[in-house]
Every structure is written in structure tokens, then in C-alpha cells.
């Protein structure tokens, strides 16, 4: 079964994300470091959205794939500074074929993108979730999602984990994620200046 790792800085909402995606009920709190171990869950992913009565049941079944989702402890970088971060990095390194949903706090983009780029650099396919989108809006931050998409060349989705906004898109993006070369990203970043 393919695996999806949920990674991101501490206290950005990974566990809320996990609970929403899997229907599980792991402990969430508003403190960094709530998840020091990991939790596993399962979900079905399809590349298309099926709504309403099951008129295309067979097709739906065919296009659906089971994924194992792993809620990883928060980390600031892939150079571990403590036990929880060490677990996070080991889990990533142990799952070479996994896809990563990088959850970042949209109001603290810089440090989130730092981790995200480190994960991309190691060759993992990444979906970037800009979580706490409402908080960024409250702070009057303007984030150009389309530009981020074109520079990083990965799916980028604004989300609000506690309300469920953006989750449909995150799930539909999973099959679109692919590894990207960091050099390509650096070239595009160079063009912006």
C-alpha cells in the first residue's frame, strides 16, 4: 500500500489534518509537541470526485486506491535537534517511496517553506497545504497561490483544517504530485528577482 506522510512545523495542524483525512481521533491540542510519537490511519483516494448515488460504481472502485497515512511529529528541519524531530526524520528516511503532504502555517510561510523545500530536495513527491488560511487572512497577508504553484511545480492548496476547507482539493491533488528537482525551483526563483 502506498504511504502518505503528513509533515510540517510543530503546531500547524497536522493532527487535525490526520483526523479529517482518516476519520481517526488522535489527540489534538493547541501546543507544539502534542504529537511526539506517530499515528497511522487509512484512506481511499481517487483522482476524480464522485458525488451522489453510485451510478458508476465499478469505475469508482477502479479509480480508487488505498493509502496509509502517517501523522509525523512536527519538525523545523530535517536536521533533528531533539527526540521528536529525530523520529520525524527517521520516518521520512524509512519511507523512500512515500508521498508527503507538507502542512504549513500560511501565516508563517518562511519557516514552513524551508522544511518543505528540504523534503522536495530529498526527492519526495509533495503536496503543499497552506493551512490556517483564515489566520493569514486575518493578518491581512496576501499569498499568491498560483505563483507558488508555478515556482514549486507542485500542487498547492489553501486549507483550514478545523473547518475542512480545501480538503477535497488536497485529496484530489494527491495523484498529481511528483518529484521536482530543486535546481528547477532555484532557476524560477532567480527569474522572480
Amino acid at each position, binding site marked *: 500500500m502506498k504511504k502518505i506522510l503528513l509533515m510540517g*512545523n510543530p503546531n500547524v495542524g497536522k493532527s487535525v489534518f490526520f483526523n479529517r483525512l482518516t476519520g481517526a481521533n488522535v489527540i489534538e491540542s493547541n501546543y507544539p509537541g502534542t504529537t511526539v510519537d506517530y499515528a497511522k490511519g487509512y484512506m481511499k483516494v481517487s483522482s476524480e470526485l464522485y458525488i451522489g448515488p453510485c451510478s458508476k460504481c465499478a469505475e469508482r472502485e477502479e479509480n480508487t486506491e488505498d493509502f496509509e497515512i502517517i501523522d509525523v511529529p512536527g*519538525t*523545523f*528541519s530535517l*536536521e533533528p*535537534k531533539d527526540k521528536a524531530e529525530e523520529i520525524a526524520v527517521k520516518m521520512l528516511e524509512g519511507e523512500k517511496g512515500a508521498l508527503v503532504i507538507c502542512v504549513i502555517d500560511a*501565516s*508563517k510561510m*518562511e*519557516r514552513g517553506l*524551508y*522544511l518543505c523545500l528540504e523534503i522536495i530536495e530529498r526527492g519526495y513527491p509533495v503536496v503543499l497545504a497552506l493551512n490556517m488560511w483564515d489566520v493569514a487572512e486575518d*493578518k491581512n497577508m496576501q499569498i499568491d497561490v498560483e505563483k507558488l504553484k508555478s515556482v514549486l511545480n507542485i500542487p498547492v492548496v489553501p486549507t483550514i483544517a478545523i473547518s475542512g476547507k480545501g480538503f477535497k482539493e488536497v485529496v484530489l491533488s494527491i495523484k498529481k504530485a511528483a518529484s521536482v528537482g530543486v535546481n528547477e525551483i532555484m532557476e524560477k526563483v532567480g527569474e522572480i528577482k
Partner: protein
Amino acid sequence: MEKKLSEMNYEEEGRVKSIEQDLKNKVAGMGIRVGKNLKMITKHPLKGPMVVEVDGSHTSLALSVAGRIIMEVKR
């Protein structure tokens, strides 16, 4: 004026001037890099960690780590 981050006073603001080479990657994940503006929020007693504001969010640093970051402080 130049001083170590660990020597900053409460509410004092400054710009990161230099970071010891082997520390650079460690603190970059917390959003601390050369050129960034930091504000000292609080220091914990008994040589405990200090809390600084970076990009509108608080992050804590061991005092020994803060001692290896050089700041440019106004006045």
C-alpha cells in the same frame, strides 16, 4: 551597536548580523537567518531558554544557541 542575541534586553529589537557557520542550518528552520529582524520577548531564569519574535511568531532558543548569534541593535 553589536551584541549577542543572548545579551539583548526585554522588548529590544535588532537585525541578525551573523550566525556561526555550523549553527546556520539549525536555526534557519525556525526562520532565523542573517538580515532578519528579531525582537527579544523574554528570558527564562537559571540560564533557561529565551523567547524571540520572528515574523510575528514566537520561538524559543537555548541561551547557548542565542550566544552564537550576533545582532545589530539600534543606538
